[in-house]
C-alpha cells in the first residue's frame, strides 16, 4: 500500500469513528503537478486526498481559522517537518491546543516520499530535533552566497530593487501560518505607521516589519515565497533572521510546544552584543 493509500485509510477511519471532525490535506490542483488544500469532513470523500512529492504547501495556518478549534474537537492535518514545527509555535503562542491536532506527517527527501511516525506533535520531537543539528537551511545556495558577499550598500540596493516590485497585496501575510493576528499592524490606521501606498518607503516598512515579526518564529516553510506574485525572495530574509537568532540566542523556532518566544523571553546569559 502506498503512503497515500495508508493515509486515506487512516483518514477514513478517524472521520467515520468521529475521532476527528475534519482532515486538512492536499487535493488535485488546476494543473498536473499542482496541489491545493482540501478540507474533508465526510469519510466518503477521503479518495480526494492526494499525497506525493508535489505536496509542499504548509497547511498549519488553516488550523487557526476563527472558530475552527473552539468546539474542542480534533482536526487532522497533513504536515511536513516545517509544518510540525509551526504547530509547536502556534501552541507555544496559545493559538491552539496541540492535543486537538492529529498529524499526518510526511517528508520528501531526494524526490522520495516518506511517512513520519506519530500522531501528536510531541511524538515528532526526534524528526524536528534533527533540524537543529542538520538544518537544511536555505535551498538557493547560489543566491545566499551572492548576498553574503555583498557590502551593506550593495545589499541595500539589492533589496531596494526587490522591494520595488512589491504591490502590497499582502499575499505573503495571508499565506504565512504565523500571521494570525486578527488585526495586522498594517491595517491599523490610527496612526498609520506603515504607509499603505506601494512606494519604496511603505514597501520597505512592510517588509522590515514582516521580517522582525517572524524573527525566531519562522519555520522556513516557503509559503510566503510561493505566494508572492512578483517573486520577491522573501524566504531569504527569513532565513537570515533565523541565522541571526540562532547565533545570538541559540534558538531554533518550533522545537517544542512549550518553547518560550525568543523575543519575549529573557535569560541572564543572553548575549548583549546588540546593545550599543
Amino acid at each position, binding site marked *: 500500500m502506498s503512503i497515500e493509500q495508508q493515509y486515506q485509510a487512516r483518514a477514513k477511519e478517524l472521520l467515520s469513528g468521529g475521532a476527528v471532525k475534519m482532515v486538512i490535506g492536499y487535493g488535485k490542483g488546476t494543473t498536473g503537478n499542482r496541489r491545493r488544500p482540501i478540507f474533508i469532513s465526510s469519510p466518503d470523500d477521503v479518495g480526494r486526498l492526494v499525497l506525493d512529492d508535489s505536496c509542499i504547501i504548509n497547511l498549519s495556518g488553516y488550523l487557526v481559522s476563527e472558530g475552527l478549534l473552539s468546539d474542542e474537537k480534533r482536526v487532522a492535518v497533513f504536515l511536513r517537518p516545517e509544518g510540525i514545527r509551526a504547530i509547536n509555535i502556534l501552541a507555544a503562542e496559545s493559538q491552539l491546543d496541540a492535543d486537538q491536532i492529529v498529524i499526518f506527517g510526511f517528508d520528501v527527501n531526494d524526490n522520495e516520499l516518506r511517512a513520519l511516525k506519530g500522531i501528536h506533535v510531541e511524538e515528532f520531537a526526534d524528526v524536528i530535533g534533527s533540524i537543529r543539528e542538520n538544518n537544511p537551511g536555505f535551498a538557493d545556495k547560489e543566491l545566499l552566497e551572492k548576498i553574503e558577499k555583498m557590502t551593506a550598500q550593495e545589499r541595500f540596493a539589492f533589496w531596494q530593487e526587490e522591494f520595488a516590485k512589491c504591490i502590497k497585496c499582502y499575499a505573503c501575510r495571508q499565506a504565512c501560518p504565523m500571521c494570525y493576528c486578527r*488585526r495586522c499592524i498594517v491595517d491599523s490606521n490610527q496612526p498609520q505607521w506603515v504607509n499603505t501606498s506601494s512606494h519604496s518607503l511603505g514597501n520597505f516598512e512592510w517588509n522590515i516589519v514582516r521580517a522582525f515579526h517572524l524573527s525566531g518564529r519562522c519555520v522556513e516553510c516557503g509559503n510566503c515565497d510561493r505566494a508572492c506574485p512578483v517573486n520577491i525572495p522573501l524566504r531569504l530574509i527569513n532565513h537570515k533572521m533565523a541565522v541571526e537568532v540562532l547565533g545570538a540566542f541559540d534558538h531554533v523556532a518550533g522545537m517544542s510546544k512549550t518553547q518560550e518566544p525568543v523575543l519575549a523571553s529573557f535569560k541572564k546569559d543572553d548575549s548583549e552584543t546588540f546593545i550599543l
Partner: protein
Amino acid sequence: MAKIGVFICHCGENVGAKVDCTKLAAAMGEHPGVAVSVEYKYFCSDPGQESVKKAIRENNLTGVVVAACSPRMHEATFRKACAEAGLNPYLCEIANIREQCSWVHTDKDMATEKAMDITRSMVEKVKRNNKLQPIEVPVTRRALVIGGGIAGIQAALDIANAGQEVVLVEREPSLGGHMAQLSETFPTLDCSQCIMTPRMVEAAQHPKIRLLTYSEIESVDGYIGNFTVRVRMKSRYIDIDKCTGCGDCITKCPAKKISSEFDCDLGKRTAVYTPFAQSVPNIPVIDKANCIYFKNGKCKICSKTCQCDAIDFAMTDTFVDLEVGAIVVATGFQVQNNSVYGEYGYGTYPDVINGLQFERMASASGPTAGKIQRPSDGAEPQTVVFIQCAGSRDPSKGVRYCSKICCMYTAKHAMLYAHKVHDGKSHIFYMDIRAAGKGYDEFSRRAIEEDEAAYVRGRVSKVWQENGKLMVRGVDTLLGRPVEIAADLVVLATAMIAQPDAKEFAKTIGIGYDEYGFYNEAHLKLRPVESSTAGVYLAGACQSPKDIPDSVAQASATASKVLALFSKETLEREPVVATNNEATCAGCWGCVLACPYNAIEQKDILDRSGRIIKRVASVNPGLCQGCGTCVTFCRSNSLDLAGFTEKQIFAEVMGL
C-alpha cells in the same frame, strides 16, 4: 481647538549661549495651535513658574510645552505648576533643548534649528495628550532592611523607633558588619565595639524589628508600597529557639583550626562558631564545609555536649515570604585582595597585612587581644610602614576612585601603634592626605605632631625580605630622592570595593549599579539615597566608599524617606501604564513573558453561557511601571501606553 503655551527657558547661559531663544520663541509663536510663546531666563524659578501659571489662566491654555532641561530634572516641577493653575499635569511636556541640544552643539544657528525641531515635535505631541489621573495604590507599612552593619542597623532602628515594622536581614550569623571588626574609630578614638554592640542589641530586642540573621534575599517582586520578598534562612543546624548561647558546643568542637573570617585570617575558629564573642544573636552556626560530622559522618560532639538538644544535623534551608512596602539596601563593601600587588608581597610575606587585619590586631577583642604583633613570629614591631592608596586611585591594578577612609584610618593606625608601642616608629607613604570632615584634619595633624608619624609623600615600588626585615623601597617626592626603610611590619591601606556579588544582587532586586558594582542613586546630588527603582533606598558603603558618620547619616536619610512613604495609607502613582485593546489582541501572550514586572495577566473573555470566546492579555495598572516593553513587543499593536500613546509618539515623530 488647541491652545498650547510654549515656554522657552534660557537656563541662564546653559541654553541661551547656544540657542537663539528669541528666534525660537518667534518661530514657535507662528506654529499652528500655539497661543503663547515666550522666553525667560529661568522658568524653574518662582517668578518663572508664576508666569507659566498666569499664562495658563489668562489664555485658557489646553497644553504646555516647556523647552528647557531634561524632563528628569524639572518635569515634576512644571507639571505641579500646571496643576496649580488648573491644567491637568499630563498636558504639560518638556522639550529637552539643553542636554539634547545646547550642551552638545557648538554652532548656534544649527543648534537653534534643532531646538525648533525638538520643541515643535513636543507641541505636536501635547496637542494629542490626554488628561490622566494618578493611580492610588495601597502601601504595606513594613520595611525590609538588607544588611546588618551599622547602616542597616541605623536605618532599622530609625524606622522602628518611629513605630513602623522592620524586617532586618543579615547574611552572616551575626549583626555587626565591618564596624564590629574595627578597633577604635576616628576622629574620636572611641572603641568601635563599645558603640556598636549596644546598637546591635537594641535592634535585636526592638519589638518592631524582626531579625533574620544567616539569611539571604532569594527574590524580590512587586513595586513601591507592595514588594513581595522571599528570604532564604540558611540552616544553622542549630535550633534558634532552643539554643541558649552557652557556648559549650564551641568549647568542645574538635575542629579548631579553621581560619576566622571575622579576624581576617589572623585567628582561628571552630566549625561550630559565632563570629565573635559579642555576636547578636548569640547563637552559633555549624560551618558545614569544615564540620567533621558532615565531612566524615562521625563526631557529633557538639550534639552530645548540648544540654538543650538544640543541634539538628538534618536541618534544611527554609524560606520566609515577606510583604513589605519599602526596601533599604545596606549591603556594605569588601576590601580588595592586595595580592594583585606582587611587588608589595601581600600573601607572600606574612608580615605584610592589610588595614582591616591591623584593625583586628589592634582590637582588644581581636586575636592578639590588642597587642601589635608580627604575624610571622609574634614579635612586637619596632618599625611599621603604612602604604596608602594600595589599590585606590590606581587605574592600572586597583580602582580608579578614592576609597575615602584610608587617609583617616592610616593616621589612626599610626596613633594606635604609637599608643601601644611607645618607642615604635611609623612611616606613612601617601599620595595626598585627604582629611575633609569634622575634626578630621585636626586628627591627622595629631598623628603627625603628637604621635610622630613620619609622612613620606611618594609611592612604594617594592617590598622584599632581607635579614628578617621587610625592606621598603619608595620615593620621597618632596625631597626628590629614593627612600629605603627596614620595617618589621607593613600595612597596606587597601581599597574598598563593592561586594563580589553586588551586581548579581542588584539584578535580583532590580536596581542599577556603576562600573565598579556600587549601587546607583537616582540623582547624585538631589536624590542621593534613592535608587533608580521607586521604593528601594540605599544606605552606606554599598553606594560608594563611606566612613561611619556618612553611613549613619545616609541610613537615617533612608529611614526618613521610608517614613514619608509610610505616612499615608495609599500612594499616588504615575498613571503612565499600558492598556490592551482586547478587540485586536491575538492572545499570543508574548507580552506576559516580556513584562519585567509580571504586570500582565491572561484573561478569558466569556459569552453569556460561560464559554470562552477569546483569550487576551490584561494589564494590572497597579503593577505596571510604564516601561513600554510590552508595547514594543506586541505584533498587532494592541498594547498602548498612556502618556506615550502610539498617536502621540507618531505626532511627535511627524512633527520633527
